[in-house]
């Protein structure tokens, strides 16, 4: 069904396209390989290999591996997009979190972007938390885009 951004996305059908699939119902595991695209409403995830864990036919976790794996999603409350990429993206259905590991980068359109070895994106409260890596001396970078201040806004309006 055509989804408008403000419907509850997670109740919409999930569509997965790939080059091949190996599924083991008894283990509750399906592995999609080759140009994998997962779509649910406005959420789109790309990867080379996706492993879905679905014991008793209920999806509990999905691991997306790519070069990089990418995702993007429309946030209806803020009316903007969030997108991200990483070597591995893991979605946990139970606590509704997305863990990006390896060259992780998340960008909230017109607000801020964050990069680092590991980023956790919480779908419940839309918060981002990032972790550096002492061993590899990898740090976190956060870039805030200044919102247009009122004065600059008035100036641009008053000009002919």
């Amino acid at each position, binding site marked *: 069904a055509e989804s408008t951004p403000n419907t509850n996305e997670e109740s919409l059908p*999930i*569509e997965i396209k790939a080059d091949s699939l*190996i599924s083991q119902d008894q283990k509750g595991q399906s592995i999609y390989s080759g140009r994998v695209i997962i779509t649910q409403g406005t959420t789109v995830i790309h990867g080379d290999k996706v492993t879905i864990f679905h014991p008793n*036919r*209920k999806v509990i976790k999905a691991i997306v591996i790519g070069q990089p794996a990418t995702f993007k999603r429309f946030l209806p409350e803020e009316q903007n997009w969030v997108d991200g990429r990483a070597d591995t993206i893991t979605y946990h*259905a139970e606590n509704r979190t997305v863990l990006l590991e390896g060259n992780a980068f998340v960008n909230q359109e017109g607000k801020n972007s964050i990069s680092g070895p590991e980023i956790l994106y919480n779908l419940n409260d839309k918060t981002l938390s990032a972790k550096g890596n002492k061993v590899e001396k990898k740090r976190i970078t956060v870039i805030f885009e200044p919102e247009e201040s009122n004065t600059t806004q008035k100036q641009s309006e008053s000009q002919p």
Partner: protein
Amino acid sequence: MSKKLSVILLFVAALVVLTIAFKQSINRDASSVQSKPLSLTHSWQIFESTSWQIPKLTPNTKQTIIYSDEVFYQNKTKQSRFKNPYIIQDKETSAFTIKSLQGQSVNDQIVHFNGDVVIHMVEKQSPSENKTLKSEQISYNTLSETLTSKVYTEIIEPGLMISGIGFKANMTSGKYRFLSDVKTVYQPQKTEDK
């Protein structure tokens, strides 16, 4: 003059007779070819048949029942041709049926199903996991219990549809594989909503 006319008439009559005779011989050849199947002369045939394949060593664990409207069997090549074959594989925790319009078996082991192939897979303990598989061609190895298809195949179960081109499955382990052009549509269960 009348002599000439009679000769001409005679000649025309002969032509007509020849034409009719030639036409009849063609029809006879055509019909005789149709009654004898091109590919296979059979050793025996049976209609409305039901046959059981019961492994000697494990008679209770697995029985393959084959029902068919027509079976033409060739002893020498151990091949048979089925019309509307219907296989039932009944086991302790699961069962499945395979049916199609046509079928052939090879060496009494591999059965090729062709035309509107439908497989129903039943999980006796959890009916919600019942599946239906559809394809236009699938081969079933009754000994190794494996399914293979080279064409478009789809699996439908409650809330889930998977399709692809090229399919392999092991009916014992439950592991299956789609070889290309995979598409899955999954409807999250209501309990998963927030």
